[in-house]
């Protein structure tokens, strides 16, 4: 039962990721991204990480995607992106190269048994995460806030007085 659920959700996640890459229309792509984020949230749920799943749905699939779609609708002008690419065939090299990398990783990972998990297994609750964030991971948490501040300043700089 668990395996079937995982397989189904994983397939949806992969399919939507492919759709995101392959769709020319940016809006369609964004919608595929919503599906993808949602299915990853479902994966979190099967692992027992309820809070993470909820945060994923609310923050990413919800708030951020709304902004995303909004930005695309406002900014992207028509179909200008489709110009002739003289070196388009080269792109097909990416496929075998990526497949090769995947194969290499699989060869190693299949042959390796992961270590037994250390510490408490998968703390999924709000309380556990909160505890971790303010003890073990206090510094990364704070650092992330600095990172976001820098990003904000950067956006201000790039968006302001665009002429």
């Amino acid at each position, binding site marked *: 039962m668990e395996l079937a659920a995982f397989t189904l959700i994983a397939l949806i996640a992969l399919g939507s990721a492919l759709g995101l890459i392959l769709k020319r229309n940016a809006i369609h792509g964004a919608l595929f991204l919503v599906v993808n984020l949602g299915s990853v949230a479902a994966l979190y749920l099967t692992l027992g990480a309820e809070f993470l799943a909820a945060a994923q749905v609310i923050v990413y699939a919800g708030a951020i995607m709304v902004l995303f779609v909004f930005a695309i609708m406002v900014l992207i002008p028509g179909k200008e992106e489709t110009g002739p690419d003289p070196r388009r065939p080269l792109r097909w090299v990416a496929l075998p190269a990526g497949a090769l990398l995947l194969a290499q990783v699989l060869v190693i990972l299949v042959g390796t048994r992961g*270590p037994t998990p250390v510490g408490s297994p998968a703390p999924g609750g709000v309380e556990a995460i909160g505890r971790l964030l303010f003890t073990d991971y206090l510094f990364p948490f704070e650092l992330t806030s600095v990172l976001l501040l820098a990003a904000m300043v950067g956006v201000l700089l790039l968006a302001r007085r665009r002429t």
Partner: protein
Amino acid sequence: MSPVVPPPAVALGVLLPVLVVLAAAAVVLVLDVLPPRDSKAHLGGVALAGIIGALLAIVMRWGTDARAFRDMVLLDTYALYFDLVICYAAALIVMFSMDYLGRTGSESGEYYSLLLFSTAGMMLMASAGDLIVVFLALELMSLSLYVLAGFFKQRLTSGEASMKYFLLGAFASSFLLYGIALIYGATGSTNLDRIAAAAATRNAEPMVLIGLAMMLVGFGFKISSVPFHMWAPDVYEGAPTSVTAFIATGSKAAAFAAMIRVLVVALRGAQPDWSALLWALAALTMTVGNVVALAQSNLKRLLAYSSIAHVGYMLMGLVAGGGPGPGAVLFYLLAYTFTTVGAFGAIALCARAGEEAVEVSDYAGLARRHPVLAATLALFFLSLIGIPPLAGFVAKFYLFGAAVRAGYIWLTVIAVLNSAVAAYYYLRVIVYMYMREPDGEPVAVAPSLAGGLALTLAVAGIVILGLMPAPFADLAQVAVAPLLR
């Protein structure tokens, strides 16, 4: 009720140099919205003051060996050494920026605050004792630099540089993150010491190795090692020259700092493996960098390929390993930073008909009109060639010596051969400056006080390093000691 959460261990003293820089960034942001609105020249001064404060803090803290936040942040001599290099570069670049941006009146609070943010990110990379911090600090640095590369919004190349840097940087970051995840999966920890301990006991070798491979791709991008270097020429060319200088020095130094610590501390068990790989990367990087540089006519692209070649030399030190190898890399980074910041700074001071002078031919006859500037630029190039008694020579001497002593004769031969080839393209610029007449409008230069001071500091750096390298080499050796425990 659940038990009270134990209060987290907060030791801000360990973060002091970084906090000073971040505080300066905040002050710059606040002052930006206060009057005077029409002139932002004073913000550079504030940023400079912040960096000098950080330098003071570094000197104050010298010799400590502290760790905090559950070993996520380390403040040992290794971190402090890199802090010193990074802050020195940042200080010079702020001074050059005051001149460079001031001339076009495009100074802004965001520019200086982002510069400070990325400086803080770089410093944290050197202090990181945990892969999570490595990643976050790297992102803090990179994000700021992505934006800074696109600072000249009215110039298409600048925006293009920013976009390319961002897209490829994100691509590289994903490799790094995947590598971190794999190593976490194999060892159950992201802490460097615990990874080392786990890797030693557990039989998870292949998974650690593939994680290592992925991380090397990420780091390889940041230090612009072949074949992850292709962004560098485009970004160096398009970005504002002052930002280019920072990308070429600060971000490289920081990436080396994190990479050396991760390799030498966490993955010391895999030393034979990564050392063999880096051998090939070093040889490839220096050769491609130098040979392609021969064909460049744009000075910024030329320096981009030259900096790629220098990365190849530095990787040699990592290959050599032990104490002397990384020590030589640290010294080389110091010499390289002095020289490269100076060279880019001098280029930033040259403007041609309002545009930047970036073609080699733009420098024809510079020696006639601005003998001092031409002489300093020539000094930087001579140091890059490795002509004694400048910093570049001594740095190469230590580095090649370390490689030879570790038995890597062939790699050294390749490196020496490469540095002979390199003489050609550096010399070409000097020939243009000293032995050609300009064919168009002359290069106009009007260095301000800040620019002149920065240039003087950079020249003093390479001359002092070249004439009295011993104390600095000792410093570099002391700095690597914490890694080798």
